[in-house]
């Protein structure tokens, strides 16, 4: 018998979303906004996803600046707010600011969780919680693929499956003796490490998060992995260990009880009085051994894709991310789409080594919106508005996007703001699209604006001009204050726009 309180009983739905973290909630919001019938299922007991548990030390590494120079319920404010989900209604915008106590611009974990739950409630997003997806069958029908999901609550059928299940499955390498280590996901409260010699396998953010949080508790901390750790300050991007976690580097440089090794772990064994970790140095292959009381494997997570690889979903990398199209559909199984952090599997151009930030809320919230717009247009007959732009306003529009569009700032060289020019439709705002889609498909003359970074500290707008089917890249000059609306920019962008919309520079 159907439970009257729980939404989305087993049955057939055009679209099924799995996951109730930020990725799943954003997509559920967008589906409802576009009037697409769907169900949202989640194995969790409530909304919030990973923020119901992590980070361990209870404060995020993504900021929200409540007093930034933009109205809190404006689109421009999203550039200064990495954590809120996005919406069109003013009362649903910039919501994270309502849940911060002023002690830090990095919200605490409970503040993030509360903000996500409040968004779901205020937006009226329904989720069937405590419903675990167990297995999947794919049938090819005359209308396209159809997916049958077995869940803990029964059978669901859909034509479009959107997985926003996070990169959430703990991964440990097959190192001999790894059973003596615990995974990052099973780290205990900080005080239980008081006086312990701690060995951390892995030098990514999770390893340094633990090291930072345990500096005052552990008697000694060693971190090791084969490659050198880099910080975000060195990479001028979010690649590398985040600035929030750099204290262990300084302690190491001072000889202050932290050792950071470039070495591979050969094995972990139990010895009298604790554990021994045997390593080989990456530079010269020489053996090193470290004695420890506890070993933690901060070796990452994989995607819990269940049986989807058996259905043909290709994955790659240690996280086993699914390979994806520019619009976050499986590159090998049409009809399976991805939301949330998994969208980082659509890696884009990674120009100068800098990825889009799809692995975090500030990036993937836009991917979710664009994915649903695409589905709505391609499969549900929903027309997405493409406002006309007057020739006299074109240069202003393009420079304003480069200066303020949060999508471009959070997804550098990944999402682009596109304006097309054609004889029949005139000058149209095509909105935000994945840059690789713009580059790899033909279409009318157009300009795609992005914000890009060169990995050495410069940030600048780039205009991709498509003319007669061929695309050319034109980087604009960096500006020390990142202000791209002044006369030199107007002149440069005007000359480029004249190529596709003659007279644009005259405005």
């Amino acid at each position, binding site marked *: 018998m159907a439970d009257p309180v729980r939404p989305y009983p087993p049955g057939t739905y055009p679209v099924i979303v799995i996951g109730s973290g930020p990725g799943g909630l954003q997509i559920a919001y967008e589906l409802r906004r576009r009037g697409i019938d769907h169900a949202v299922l989640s194995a969790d007991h409530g909304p919030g996803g990973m923020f119901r548990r992590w980070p361990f030390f209870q404060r995020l590494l993504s900021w929200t600046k409540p007093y930034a120079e933009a109205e809190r319920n404006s689109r421009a404010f999203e550039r200064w707010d990495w954590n809120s989900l996005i919406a069109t209604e003013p009362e649903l915008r910039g919501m994270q600011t309502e849940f911060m106590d002023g002690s830090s611009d990095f919200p605490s974990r409970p503040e993030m969780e509360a903000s996500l739950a409040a968004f779901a409630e205020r937006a009226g997003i329904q989720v069937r919680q405590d419903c675990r997806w167990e297995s999947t069958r794919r049938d090819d029908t005359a209308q396209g693929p159809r997916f049958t999901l077995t869940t803990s609550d029964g059978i669901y059928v859909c034509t479009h499956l959107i997985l926003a299940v996070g990169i959430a499955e703990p991964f440990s*390498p*097959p190192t001999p003796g790894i059973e003596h280590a615990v995974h990052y996901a099973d780290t205990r409260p900080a005080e239980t490490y008081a006086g312990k010699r701690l060995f951390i396998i892995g030098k990514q953010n999770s390893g340094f998060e633990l090291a930072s949080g345990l500096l005052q508790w552990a008697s000694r901390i060693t971190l090791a*992995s*084969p*490659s050198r750790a880099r910080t975000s300050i060195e990479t001028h991007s979010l690649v590398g260990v985040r600035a929030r976690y750099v204290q262990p580097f300084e302690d190491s440089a001072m000889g202050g009880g932290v050792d950071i090794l*470039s*070495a*591979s772990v050969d094995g972990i064994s139990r010895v009298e009085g604790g554990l021994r970790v045997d390593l*080989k*140095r*990456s530079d010269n*292959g020489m053996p090193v051994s470290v004695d420890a009381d506890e070993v933690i494997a901060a070796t990452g997570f994989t995607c819990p894709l269940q049986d989807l690889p058996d259905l043909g979903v*290709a*994955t*790659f*990398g*240690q996280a086993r991310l699914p*390979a994806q*199209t520019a619009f976050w559909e499986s*590159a*090998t199984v049409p009809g399976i789409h991805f939301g949330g952090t998994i969208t980082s599997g659509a*890696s884009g*151009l*990674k*120009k*100068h*080594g*800098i990825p889009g930030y799809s692995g975090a809320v500030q990036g993937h919230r836009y991917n979710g919106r664009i994915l649903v717009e695409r589905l709505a247009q391609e499969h549900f007959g929903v027309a997405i508005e493409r406002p006309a732009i007057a020739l006299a306003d074109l240069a202003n529009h393009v420079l304003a996007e480069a200066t303020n569009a949060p999508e471009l700032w959070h997804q550098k*060289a990944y999402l682009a703001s596109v304006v097309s020019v054609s004889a029949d439709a005139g000058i149209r705002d095509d909105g935000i699209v994945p840059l*690789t889609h713009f*580059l*790899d498909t033909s279409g009318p003359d157009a300009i795609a604006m992005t914000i*890009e970074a*060169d*990995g*050495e500290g410069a940030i600048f707008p780039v205009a991709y001009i498509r003319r007669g089917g061929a695309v*050319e*890249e034109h*980087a604009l000059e960096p500006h020390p204050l990142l202000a791209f609306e002044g006369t030199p920019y107007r002149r440069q962008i005007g000359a480029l726009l004249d190529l596709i919309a003659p007279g644009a520079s005259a405005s």
Partner: protein
Amino acid sequence: MATREEIAEALAGMTLFADLAMPQLLGVAGRFEEAFFAEGSRVLRQGLTGSAFYVILDGEAAVLVDAVQRATLGRGEFFGEVSTLLGEPPTADVVAVRPLRCVVLPGSEVESFLIDHPKVTYRMLQAQSRRLRNANRARG
């Protein structure tokens, strides 16, 4: 694919990395990232800045200059090094003609990688010399 260990095993069988011992290969595998490209998708784009250095783990890629196919590349072969070494945009498109798995190093890291691994640099120079010799023969 692929854990760091699996990538290191795959690299161990390639001429480019033939002189490295396993601890070094694990370091290399940690420095590169794995990438997958579906059949028909573009890996390298002619004329676009900010590209990277690729080594093919599995699959096949075509090299196209102005949409004319010039070569195909397979397992153990590499591309993108010319543009990263010269700091110029690639002069060719590289397109996956079968599902393609690669390891990728951002262009900005190629110099320090080659300086850290002179044996890899030597092997790369050998491969480049062979390409040059063959191109000269074809021309002559």
